[in-house]
């Protein structure tokens, strides 16, 4: 592969990686605060994608604009799931309850989509779907570029919220030690609901950003749940910075794999990397995390 | 009499903190060794090291003359080491009997045998009546007894007791002290962490005092109680609080 080709591959990988990072951040934050792995995380992404699709088809609403209704919708859906289904089983003696519960939620979400929309893949075409931009002899896809920019913006905002606001402090305190946080007056119940809502919303937003670039079908959620897992394990469960680096790494690895011709195995690369990291450095390559 | 437990230059570092720093002592077979010190002195870390839950940064541990440094808890159990936990940890959904059976299985492979042995241990500790109750339904005093029962079920030669009388009323405390004497009489070596002076004075042949991870005194209970360094360590820690 020529140097330009390599740079091209890496650049596309970085752009996709940005979106992977966003998906991963939602999952890792939920784990950090609630110690729950949300097995339905990708399904929220699928819901977001379909919402954007419907808004586009029926109202002609540009996907990037549909972020405006989708983000709050994500917050609502996430909060509802957390309040109604997760909070009651939180202290269950059965440690598997949250795993099974989120698996169930995922099944319900993906199959509702299946029943409503059918199994055939859908896609949208906007004026900029196939537009590209040239940068130092590298060609970059405009939708991916915009997604990356918006992701960076979103992540930056999240970072500010986590570090500068009272709410952010409350979240970090709860993540470190729930009991201590309670003693300091933090309403951990609210924090848990809010964090899950934010995580779900981020996932849905990622779905919206991906719509111009991908086909959507009901089971796409499962694929992204796996990608989110890979990203968070690479980066360290609970670490936001880790998820960012993990997402970028995954994007680049997949892009290189596809570039070198192993397209069928592309998804397998990430999964194998994931299993290797579990073997060698389960606390993640970048962040620190308790296993 | 041999040396049941020999600890040499034992150290454990966490980041920059020397939780246990170069500790040496011996526990003679069949004796009761007390381990005391102000809060944060490293007693629990030392217990965790000797019972295999932590591996030492430096130093060695020998059990009845055999090197056991770095062995995991289950391997140590097989060699005759057993412990209680400061915050009692019964298996909540299992019955009292089943709790003890888990330990009994170490030396009795068949379920029926293990059950018989477990029942014997429970009887010895006065818990036979509650055998079929779920462990979570016991009173604190009974739970502390169950904790000791579980530790005895594996038929240890070295028993590590971590604050087994804290939270008990005077009569319960006396009963427990009698119980420990009985265990010692059956030939088990005991190392006991305790804050309550009465227990230390009443039970221990020798006492080791820790402060900030280091051994600052060793001797018989009266010797140690009169040691000025020991007194200032305890008083000093009050000032810091």
């Amino acid at each position: 592969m020529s140097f330009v080709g390599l740079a091209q591959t890496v650049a596309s990988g970085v752009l996709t990686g940005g979106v992977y990072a966003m998906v991963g951040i939602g999952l890792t934050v939920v784990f950090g605060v609630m110690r729950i792995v949300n097995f339905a995380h990708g399904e929220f992404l699928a819901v977001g994608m379909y919402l954007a699709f419907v808004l586009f088809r029926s109202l002609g609403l540009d996907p990037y604009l549909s972020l405006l209704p989708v983000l709050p919708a994500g917050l609502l859906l996430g909060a509802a799931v957390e309040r109604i289904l997760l909070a009651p089983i939180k202290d269950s003696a059965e440690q598997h309850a949250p795993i099974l519960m989120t698996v169930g939620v995922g099944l319900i979400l993906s199959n509702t989509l299946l029943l409503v929309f059918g199994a055939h893949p859908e896609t949208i075409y906007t004026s900029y779907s196939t537009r590209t931009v040239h940068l130092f002899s590298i060609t970059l896809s405009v939708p991916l570029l915009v997604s990356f920019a918006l992701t960076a913006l979103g992540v930056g905002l999240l970072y500010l919220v986590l570090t500068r606001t009272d709410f952010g402090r409350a979240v970090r305190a709860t993540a470190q030690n729930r009991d201590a946080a309670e003693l300091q007056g933090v309403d951990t119940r609210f924090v848990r609901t809010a964090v899950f809502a934010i995580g779900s919303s981020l996932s849905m937003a990622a779905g919206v950003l991906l719509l111009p670039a991908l086909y959507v079908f009901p089971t796409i959620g499962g694929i992204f749940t796996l990608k989110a897992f890979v990203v968070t394990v690479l980066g360290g469960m609970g670490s936001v910075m880790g998820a960012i680096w993990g997402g970028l790494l995954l994007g680049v690895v997949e892009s290189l794999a596809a570039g070198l011709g192993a397209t069928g195995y592309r998804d397998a690369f990430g999964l194998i990397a994931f299993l290797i990291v579990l073997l060698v450095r389960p606390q993640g390559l970048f962040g620190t995390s308790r296993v | 009499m041999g040396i049941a437990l020999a600890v040499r230059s034992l150290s454990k570092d966490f980041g920059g903190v020397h939780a246990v720093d170069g500790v040496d002592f011996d526990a003679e077979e069949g004796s009761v060794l007390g381990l005391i010190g102000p809060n944060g002195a490293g007693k629990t870390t030392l217990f965790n090291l000797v019972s295999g839950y932590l591996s030492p940064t430096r130093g060695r541990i020998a059990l009845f003359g055999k090197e056991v440094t770095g062995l995991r808890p289950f391997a140590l159990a097989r060699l005759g080491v057993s412990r209680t936990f400061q915050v009692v940890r019964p298996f909540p959904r299992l019955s009292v009997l089943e709790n003890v059976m888990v330990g009994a299985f170490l030396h009795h492979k068949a379920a029926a045998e293990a059950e018989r042995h477990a029942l014997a241990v429970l009887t010895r500790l006065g818990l036979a009546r509650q055998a079929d109750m779920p462990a979570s339904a016991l009173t604190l005093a009974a739970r502390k007894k169950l904790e000791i029962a579980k530790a005895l079920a594996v038929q240890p030669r070295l028993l590590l007791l971590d604050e087994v009388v804290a939270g008990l009323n005077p009569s319960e405390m006396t009963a427990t002290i009698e119980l420990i004497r009985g265990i010692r009489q059956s030939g088990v070596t005991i190392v006991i962490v305790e804050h309550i002076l009465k227990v230390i004075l009443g039970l221990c042949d020798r006492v080791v005092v820790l402060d900030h991870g280091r051994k600052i005194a060793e001797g018989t209970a009266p010797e140690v109680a009169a040691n000025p360094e020991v007194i200032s360590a305890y008083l000093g820690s009050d000032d810091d609080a």
Partner: protein
Amino acid sequence: MSRVATREGRRALAGIALVLAAFAAFPWVFGGKLNFGFSLVLFAALATSWDLLGGWAGQLSLGHTAFVGMGAYVSTLLWTRAGIPFGVGLPLAMLSGVALALVWGAITFRLRGAYFSLSSIAVAEVLRILANNWVSVTGGPEGLSLNDLPPLFGFDLYDRRVEYYLALLLLAAALLTSWRVSSSRAGFYLEAIREDQDSSMAMGVNPLKMKLAAFCLSAALSTAGGCLYGLFLAYFEPQGAFSLDLSVQLVLMAIVGGMGTVFGPTLGALVLLGSQEAFRSTFQQRSLFIYGIVIVIIVRYAPDGLLGRLRLLLRRAPWASRLPSAP
């Protein structure tokens, strides 16, 4: 004699004999529904073997189809590529399943439970991708056919009744394994690990060894089930052999019936597949959707499954006061 172990143990053994006898009679009573019967028995066996790992060792596998698919592929490839007949191919396939379990478990059991569940999805997916892409060996998306097998001990392997009884043999093995675990030291150790792993170590329990042992048993049985599945289908491809649906169904059967019990998974299989058969029109496309709802409801309101509820009900009855207190 022993109060806790033996009495429940003897009752369970009698129960197993009863269940097996009932299933053995099935083909004579419902001769026309052999396909359904086979699925029922096979899934009961698979769910029971899943539960050895999930209910007993406490590790939730969401990708158990990895073993099923492996069984189908390995046994078929051994015949088509190396001429090794089914009777030898099946045990060899089981060995491969156990090997996978040993490596996989050794890596993931040191970590928190959720990591294992995550890895299970990944492993199943990697195997599916492998089967799909390694065309020279696995035939890729075209799949494989298991044809022209010679008779085994004189029995025609393609006779549905023979396949049914082979599945029943597997179910017997699974139930007996589960029973043996439940009434033995292994069962106690596994329960202790689930209750409080650290505390159990002080009592001589080696958690890694116990979990690996349970995993190997589960893998062996599930892989054997996969071989039978491949035989039954006679033709399969990656999507079907490594199917997420299958993984989910096994989980569901175990939790509906009751995890960590001898009969729970079988009961769950009966309920699930029975409803699917009886309400076929309702199920159709909606199976997974219904499964999702059932999982959510059970986890929320009846985490011990049907058997757990039953036990709770029984305990309220005055004559139940002498039942053992363990769940």
